C-alpha cells in the first residue's frame, strides 16, 4: 500500500473510524514491511497487537470440579474441627465428672448405711436396757414419796 494511504488510514485509525478490514490492512503493512523512520512507533503498536492475539490458554479446563482447594475452606474446616473438638471434650469432661459424682454419692450412701446400721444396733441395745429397767422396777418397789 502507498505511504500516503497508510498515513491517511492511520489518522482515521486514531479517530476510531477505521473498519476491521482497514485495521487488518494496517496490521498487515506494519508487520510485514520495512517502514519509514517516522512510522516506526506504529510498528511496535501493531506488532504488539499481533503478538497478543496469538497468546493462548496453556492450562486445560476442568468442568467437573467438585472441590477446589482453597485456604478459605481450609480455615473453615479448621474452625469447625476446633468447635466440635471443644464440644466433645467438654462433653467427655462433664461425663467423667458425672461418674465421679455418682461414685462419691454411692460411697457416701454406703457410709451412711453403715452409720445407720450401727445406730440401729445401739437402739436395740437401748431397748434391752429398757427391759432391764422394767424388770428392776418390778423387783424394787420404789417408795412413792
Amino acid at each position: 500500500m502507498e505511504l500516503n494511504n497508510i498515513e491517511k488510514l492511520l489518522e482515521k485509525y486514531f479517530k476510531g473510524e477505521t473498519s476491521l478490514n482497514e485495521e487488518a490492512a494496517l496490521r498487515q503493512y506494519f508487520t510485514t514491511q520495512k517502514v519509514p523512520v517516522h512510522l516506526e512507533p506504529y510498528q511496535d503498536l501493531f506488532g504488539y497487537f499481533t503478538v497478543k492475539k496469538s497468546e493462548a490458554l496453556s492450562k486445560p479446563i476442568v468442568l467437573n470440579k467438585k472441590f477446589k482447594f482453597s485456604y478459605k475452606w481450609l480455615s473453615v474446616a479448621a474452625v469447625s474441627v476446633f468447635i466440635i473438638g471443644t464440644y466433645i471434650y467438654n462433653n467427655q469432661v462433664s461425663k467423667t465428672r458425672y461418674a465421679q459424682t455418682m461414685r462419691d454419692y454411692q460411697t457416701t450412701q454406703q457410709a451412711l448405711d453403715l452409720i445407720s446400721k450401727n445406730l440401729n444396733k445401739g437402739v436395740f441395745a437401748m431397748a434391752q436396757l429398757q427391759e432391764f429397767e422394767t424388770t428392776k422396777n418390778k423387783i424394787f418397789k420404789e417408795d412413792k414419796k
Partner: protein
Amino acid sequence: MQQAAFLQLVMPFKDKVFRLAKRLLISTDEAEDATQELYFKLWNQKEKLSQYNNIEAYAMTMTKNYCLDQLKSKRADNLTLVYSNFSKADSSLEKVIEFKDSVNKVHEIIEGLSNQQKLIIQLRDIEQYEFDEIAEITGLKETAIRVALSRARQTVREKLIKKHQYGIK
C-alpha cells in the same frame, strides 16, 4: 446438554476469554483461574445457554464482569502485590516474546490505561470485534465506544512517540 456438545460450543473462544482476563487481571495465573472459574459457571448453566443467540458475547460479558469484580475485591483487600510479580509468572518462552523491548513498551503503556480503555482496546485491536459486538459485551453505546477507543488510541500514540523519541536521543 452433553459435555461434548457443550465443549464444541464454548471451547472456540477460550483463548479470547483468557486474554481478556489477562488484560484486566494482569497476572497469567489469575487469568487462568478466572478462565477456569468462568467455564465452570458456563457449565453450571449449560441448560440456559441455548437462550443466548451469541454465546461468545455472553461469555465475554461474564468474563469482563467477573474480572472487574475480582479487581474491586482486591482493591478492598489492598492486595496490589500482583502487579509486581506478573513478570515472574510467565513461562520462559512467553518471556522471550513478551519482553522483547518493543512489545514490552506498548504493554506498559496499555497497562496504564483505565480498565474501560483496556477492555475496549483488547476487544477491538486484539480480538477484532465489530462495534456492535463490543456494545453487546460492554453494555455501552457504539458512539461511546468509538470515543473511548479513539481516546485510548491517542493516549497510546502520544506515549509511544514520546518513548520512541527518548530512545533515539
